[in-house]
């Protein structure tokens, strides 16, 4: 199920940016994705946009999932998109996760974030969403 067009497991990079020291949520998501047949590259806490984008490119991921809890979303995502564009890597699908107010989620979508999956999103819905956005992107 969780396969991309080359019938390889969908590759997802999960990154935590910002200052908060909680990665329990991301780790649970990582396990859910693995258990549904995806390859998850986990990069650890406190990543900078530069680190996240470099890793996403080197790992050639289908999806870059960035989790934020500390309210930095409106400054972090513009940087990420700028770096992706600068490296001609804007075919990587960006998904946001974590906790944020509705108006921020709307702003992120306008910026180009494909899906905003807040903390209460059921695991099944996360898996389905990621499979869908990769299928919609098509081959590359």
């Amino acid at each position, binding site marked *: 199920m969780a396969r991309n067009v080359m019938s*390889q497991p969908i590759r997802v990079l999960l990154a935590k940016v910002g200052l908060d020291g909680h990665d329990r949520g991301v780790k649970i998501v990582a396990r859910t994705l693995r258990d549904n047949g995806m390859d998850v*590259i986990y*990069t650890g806490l406190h990543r900078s946009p530069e680190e996240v984008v470099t*890793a996403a490119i*080197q790992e050639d991921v289908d999806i870059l999932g960035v989790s934020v809890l500390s309210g930095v979303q409106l400054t972090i995502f513009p940087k990420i998109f700028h770096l992706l564009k600068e490296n001609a890597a804007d075919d990587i699908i960006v998904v946001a996760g974590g906790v944020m107010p509705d108006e921020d989620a709307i702003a992120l979508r306008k910026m180009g974030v494909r899906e905003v999956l807040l903390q209460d999103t059921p695991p099944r819905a996360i898996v389905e969403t990621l499979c869908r956005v990769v299928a919609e992107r098509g*081959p590359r």
Partner: protein
Amino acid sequence: MANYIPSTKLVERVCAGDMRAVSRLISRAEAGVAEVRSALAEIYRATGRAHVVGITGVPGSGKSTLVGKVVQRLRADGRKIGIVAVDPSSPYSGGAILGDRVRMSEIGTDPGVFIRSMATHGAIGGMARAAMDAVDILDVAGYDTIIIETVGVGQDEVEIARASHTTIVVSAPGLGDEIQAIKAGMLEIADIHVVSKCDRSDAARTLTDLKSMLVLGALGSGDDWRVPVIGTSAISGEGLDELIDAITRHRRVAFETELGQRRRRSVAEFRLLKTAEALLAERFVKARSDRTAEYTEQLLARTGDPYALACALIDHSLKTEQGSTDDENT
């Protein structure tokens, strides 16, 4: 398919060191799509510059942390470094969590370092094939030293370490009272032994145990190379310079001596056989479908035996496949 760049087009960009092209070509190689073969052929002919270093050891022995520290120091000499970090896939879902980057954050944005994580995908020989293709691509992209990190638990992983010019086996204190390398059959394959976490008090014991094992077995002592045992600590930095010195000396052995020549020949042979195994398995998996059900029924009814039916299945699969790819071959 509008956005699909043919693999042969990517080769030129790989040669120019384009990170994006490198990572995409590695993905295609990993997927084993037929379209990538001619690109990989072109790549292979251009390889041979890079020093390939395999690092293996049980999970948690400190391999990724060590790679981070070693690479940081190698970078000071201006050498470009590629890293292929292989972790096992879940046998249940086929997915994997690849966490080696967590321990390599100090080199995460260095433009002279390329880190690629890879899952084993459970295919026999498949991982070896993909990892070695990735090494070739990084070689051609201008990375001077390429490190393959594998978990030393299965035969395949140990073999990958063997497929490199220089093999480092990492042991660590506190992971069981036995030296893990012995259990996994990894004692013999090391060109360099490392005991990591030497900031811990129980590391001295691991070091002496390992050294006495090596003396007993009189391993690796030739005219060209004596296997060193090096204690390291990622915390204090102890032993890192000594390790880098050993890697540099072994690079010379690998490229300039008779021993190194033999090693490179055995790597080439390994490569040939692993690739053949992987291709054979792939062909079989692709072609086997149409008779499997029929033979299963015969086996169930005991009108046939497992060996005869398996032989028939193989013969039939490969014959069918031959017929369907004839025009491609001529």
